[in-house]
């Protein structure tokens, strides 16, 4: 089956237009969060980074929700499927649209956070720690997106989104239990340790594998039903 790129682009733009009011709010909240970080005070750092995390998670979840779950629930999906699209076009458009919606704030926030760690008096050891947190968010997003693309049940899709994002708490606690990771956060230099590198690589590969497998599965379907 051949990919119809102009139509994929149109579908991505369509999803983006449907999501843009929410996205505008998240972008605004993201800029406010970066401004808090820019105040260079300890309390502002915590407010800013917490806000960034909330914005990122909310943007990821609502992007998936608007483009996949709501489309199915409000029966606009059958409208999209009636357009001259193949399951491959549809899958790629959803994947590209969501990755783009997620990647833009993700990249801005990741860059902002890393810049803050490096450019402010905060210990540079937080650089690796921040990467580990962002890698988990990427992983949780991949799981949520894959589940939402694969199941028809709104309940399961929501469960996957909330479940994977909420698990960041035990993940952070688990990181705190690893001395090679926890102790380095207080040191003013970027130091890669084996557990940190292993977790980062594992999460990145798992994210890629989950998204790759989902795309492969859907793209191979001859028809939607």
């Amino acid at each position, binding site marked *: 089956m051949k990919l119809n790129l102009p139509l994929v682009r149109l579908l991505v733009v369509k999803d983006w237009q449907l999501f843009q009011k929410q996205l505008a709010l998240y972008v605004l909240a993201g800029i406010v969060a970066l401004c808090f970080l820019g105040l260079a005070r300890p309390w502002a750092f915590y407010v800013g980074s917490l806000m960034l995390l909330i914005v990122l998670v909310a943007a990821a979840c609502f992007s998936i929700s608007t483009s996949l779950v709501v489309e199915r629930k*409000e029966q606009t999906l059958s409208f999209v499927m009636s357009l001259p*699209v193949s399951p491959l076009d549809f899958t790629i458009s959803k994947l590209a649209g969501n990755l783009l919606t997620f990647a833009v704030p993700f990249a801005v926030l990741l860059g902002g956070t890393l810049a803050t760690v490096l450019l402010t008096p905060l210990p540079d050891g937080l650089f690796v720690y921040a990467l580990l947190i962002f890698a988990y968010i990427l992983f949780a997003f991949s799981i949520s997106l894959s589940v939402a693309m694969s199941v028809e049940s709104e309940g399961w899709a929501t469960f996957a989104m909330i479940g994977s994002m909420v698990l960041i708490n035990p993940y952070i606690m688990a990181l705190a239990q690893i001395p090679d990771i926890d102790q380095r956060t207080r040191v003013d230099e970027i130091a890669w340790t084996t557990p940190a590198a292993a977790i980062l690589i594992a999460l990145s590969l798992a994210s890629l594998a989950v998204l790759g497998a989902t795309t492969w599965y859907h793209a191979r379907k001859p*028809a939607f039903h």
Partner: protein
Amino acid sequence: MSFAFSLTGVAKRYPHFALEDITLALPEGQVMGLVGVNGAGKTTLLRLITGLAAAHAGEVRVLGHRLPEEQVEAKREIGFASEDMRLYRSQTLRWHMDLMRQIYPAWSEEYARELLKRFDLRTDQAVGGCSHGQRVKALLLLCLARRPRLLLLDEPTTGLDPVARIEVLEALADVLRDAGRSVLFSSHNTHDVEQLADTITFLHKGRLVASADRHEFVDRWRRIVCQGALPAGLSAWPEIASARANGSLVEIKARAWSETLPARLAAEGLQVQRTDAMALEDIFITAVRSGGVA
């Protein structure tokens, strides 16, 4: 003769439902009404014809394209609207029209404006604020203004109030006059089908019950009222769909009326008193109950 679509020995199976052995074709330029009760398989059949579903057996060809392999090419020339299809509530009809215009090169803005007037629709209103009737008309507009060669409508009048239903039917009757366009529309309402279709197909429990020209149906089916005792074995006659006695009166519904039938009934001791043409709804119900193919 070229066909808008043709299905040959098509089967589609779901865990609790199966569409079996469907062989059906629509000549180009014809309007076919697909009649069936809820759950008869109309939506599944339409999904097969749009390429949304892949058949487990048989061959589906639409406008010369083999489905589902060439679904994209086929869908470029198909306008499909179904009862469970919704437009984006937060967006205006204009937004939807712009999207269609970018997707379909054959989109006619002029025709769209004409339909806007015909359907009495506003482009700047969010779809969420429209009535159900307006949403159906908006969907039809989006299908028609792309100038499809094949129009597929799944239960277009379901859920409409009587006024909106008449409006949609009148509008459809107007736009279906275009001889170059083939149309398949499904409904469980035989009155709608009677008004619009050239050909009528009955579907029941995943099987094709009957498919013929509308006039042929009306010509072939008869309700015959006779005086006498119901002879044993009459129901087994291939041309008899149903026969029942009420005292000395016998009501027979024939699926293949012929001038010789009264004489043959007389030979069985039945005096024909009246012969009436049947309404499509009656034909449909009788055909479904008898289970036989007309």
